[in-house]
């Protein structure tokens, strides 16, 4: 890092600041970031709300029997998540469909908006994904205990395994259960952050005339991949939420 800074100082064209795009800064001057400060996070989360509003409310305002393009996309998103919840969590999981759909819409729009040049990607921050994952983890765990009481602990007791193995498996199950929110959150932020940083690194190489064509091609390729990742990570986060919800609804092995 020190060498990079020195390189910049010496006027070299190779300046890498791949992580600068993730800096949280106040929108209206100042350097202090309080909890209430309006920052670029606020802006891009507000745009996420606008996008959800545009698709799910304005897009469906016609309520047509034969849908318009916007309504058809809204219905597709609805049907996609609805079927996912139904297939993975079961019929009784559909009660929690609005929460899961909220998660999906937020993540998918935050990811896609983050792909706009010069934008800020809210889902690239662990602060965001950890809160999302913890909300799922705590919600599902509390729901499990509320619905099944201590029977929920049966989730950790593999009754189909041979007797002596069960305590060992229980330890493993408990560890894996508590690792869930960690992997759940790091998977999303890590994927989004890594892709954006790699694009930025390629962009830094574009300053050298000799490699700039290669670098631009690489950016195009990475961008395509990132579009895919934006959707896949939203899908993965949502389907894992459904799986965890299924465990809470039907804890028996």
């Amino acid at each position, binding site marked *: *890092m*020190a060498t990079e*800074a020195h390189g*910049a*100082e010496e006027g070299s064209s190779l300046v890498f*600041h791949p*992580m*600068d795009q*993730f*800096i*949280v800064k106040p929108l209206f001057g100042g350097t202090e*970031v*309080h*909890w*209430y*400060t309006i*920052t670029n*996070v*606020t802006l891009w*989360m*507000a745009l*996420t*709300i606008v996008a*959800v*509003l545009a698709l*799910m*409310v304005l897009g*469906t305002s016609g*309520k*047509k*029997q034969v*849908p318009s393009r916007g*309504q058809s996309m*809204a*219905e597709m998103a*609805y*049907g996609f998540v609805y079927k996912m919840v139904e297939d993975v969590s079961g019929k009784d999981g559909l009660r929690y*469909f*609005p*929460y899961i*759909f*909220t*998660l999906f*819409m*937020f993540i998918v729009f935050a990811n896609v908006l983050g792909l706009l040049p010069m934008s800020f990607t*809210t889902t*690239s*921050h*662990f*602060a*965001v994904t950890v*809160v*999302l994952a913890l909300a799922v983890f705590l919600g599902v765990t509390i729901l499990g205990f509320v619905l099944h009481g201590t029977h929920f602990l049966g989730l950790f007791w593999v009754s189909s395994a041979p007797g002596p193995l069960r305590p060992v498996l229980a330890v493993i199950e408990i560890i894996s259960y508590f690792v869930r929110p960690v992997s759940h959150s790091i998977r999303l*932020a890590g994927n989004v*952050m890594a892709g954006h940083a790699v694009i930025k690194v390629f962009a830094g190489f574009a300053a050298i005339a000799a490699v700039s064509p290669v670098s631009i091609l690489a950016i195009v390729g990475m961008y395509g991949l990132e579009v895919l990742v934006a959707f896949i990570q939203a899908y993965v986060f949502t389907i894992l939420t459904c799986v965890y919800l299924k465990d809470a609804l039907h804890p028996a092995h």
Partner: protein
Amino acid sequence: MATETHDAVEGAAHAAESAGMPQLDFSTWGNQIFWLIVTLVVIYLILSKIALPRVGAVLADRAGTIANNIAAADELKQKAKDAEAAYDKALADARAEASSIVEATRAENAEKLKAATAEADAKIAAKTAEGEAAIAEIRAGAAVAAETVAREAAAEIVSAMGFKASDEEIAAGVSSRLKG
């Protein structure tokens, strides 16, 4: 770090230099978490109050319409089948009626023909009898006339030859000759 001085100059590099990853700069977490919760609540309210009931209603409505249309189509199909059966039945009935009419007409005509033939036969027989009678009469008439002529001629011849003969003798002679 040796870069403390550069930070003052290069403001942009500040966060990258000081924290490495802005994601691990915990001073911004409160801000992000606060705005995230606001955002999630707003999106949840928008979706659960407006969007999801609306889309759900549209989808249910559409499923209902499709089911109704399929039922209506099935009904129409059944109706078409019934109509076809009725048509086929009417056609068969008409064919049967036509053939029975043809049969009846043919029998009637044969009857009429027979009657007409019999009548004609009778007429022909009558005419024939009439003709035969006329011929017989003519033939009889001719025989009488021939005898008269022969008698007169015989009487003339007898008188011309200077003989005398009674009418009875001449008549007897003529008739015996005519018979011979």
